């Protein structure tokens, strides 16, 4: 009797999971937005822009200026810049998620998957998310100006992920890619 109940619960759980997956397949507008975001992210100038913006946000030049000219505004600058730094990290995470969603959409329609490549991309994605989490913690604890080194590594992992995604999309038929983006 006990085993029957366990199997029934497991069966219901699996049915629920299938239902969730089925409903997620119908999320067309979200997918389209993600595809647009991912396309924008993969553009070379978008990556350069993100890097330049990151460099500007975490640059210690403004803090040095404030410490020299208006030390009483130090806390205000740190508070303001912390908010901006966290926004920038969140934006990078959103962009990486969008790339992975596009990748999943591509993988669903692509029979010839390369397991080694898939593993490399997944490993980079999780390394990127871990770097983002670490950067967020450091920004909270030590402030944006002291977290500059982590941001540099975050940009490096992001670049690696971008080049892997580019490699993946380059090998695809443009017609199929367009079809996936419009789904």
């Amino acid at each position: 009797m006990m085993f029957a109940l366990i199997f029934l619960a497991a069966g219901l759980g699996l049915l629920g999971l299938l239902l969730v997956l089925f409903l997620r397949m119908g999320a067309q507008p979200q997918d389209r937005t993600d595809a647009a975001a991912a396309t924008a992210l993969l553009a070379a100038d978008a990556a350069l822009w993100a890097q330049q913006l990151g460099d500007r946000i975490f640059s210690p030049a403004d803090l040095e200026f404030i410490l020299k000219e208006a030390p009483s505004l130090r806390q205000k600058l740190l508070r303001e810049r912390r908010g901006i730094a966290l926004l920038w990290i969140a934006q990078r995470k959103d962009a990486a998620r969008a790339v992975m969603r596009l990748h999943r959409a591509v993988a669903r329609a692509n029979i010839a998957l390369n397991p080694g490549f898939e593993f490399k991309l997944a490993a980079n994605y999780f390394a990127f998310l871990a770097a983002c989490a670490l950067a967020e913690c450091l920004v909270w604890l030590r402030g944006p100006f002291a977290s500059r080194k982590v941001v540099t590594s975050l940009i490096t992992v992001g670049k690696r992920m971008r080049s892997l995604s580019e490699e993946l999309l380059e090998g695809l038929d443009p017609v199929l890619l367009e079809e996936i983006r419009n789904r």
Partner: protein
Amino acid sequence: MSDISRIDVKGALKDLEERTLAFIPGQIARLLYLASTRDYSTGCYYHDGLAFRFTKKAAEMALESAHREVFEGLVFSQLEVLIQELDGFIKSTHAEPRKILETWKKLQPYRVVIPQDCDPVASELLFSNIRIALAILEAPQSGNPPIQQSASQLQ
């Protein structure tokens, strides 16, 4: 965009820079001017002189491009430079600096002068830097001296 219209936009942009923007002192004044050529409701840019010399579309694209360029220049400016720009702008208005600073703090006009499709993080960075610049410039006006050297002396 066809080659002809691209040439038109380049020409319109050059014309805008040489005949108009060159006579507007400072990046903040240029940003305000370029934002003022945009319709608040539609987000479209209008400039009769440019549209007359080139085409309406070329004028619109040139204004949009110049607006974006000035905005990006200010976003990537260091705080020190932004304070100089803001100080220069306040002086160029010939109005009472304290009144301008109060108005900018209260109404935050800088929030409506950003390009429409700009990066949200970039715009937040600019707003934040302007808030700090206002706080620095306000100090000598209110008698408190958090800044040891005025922004105009930095130039």
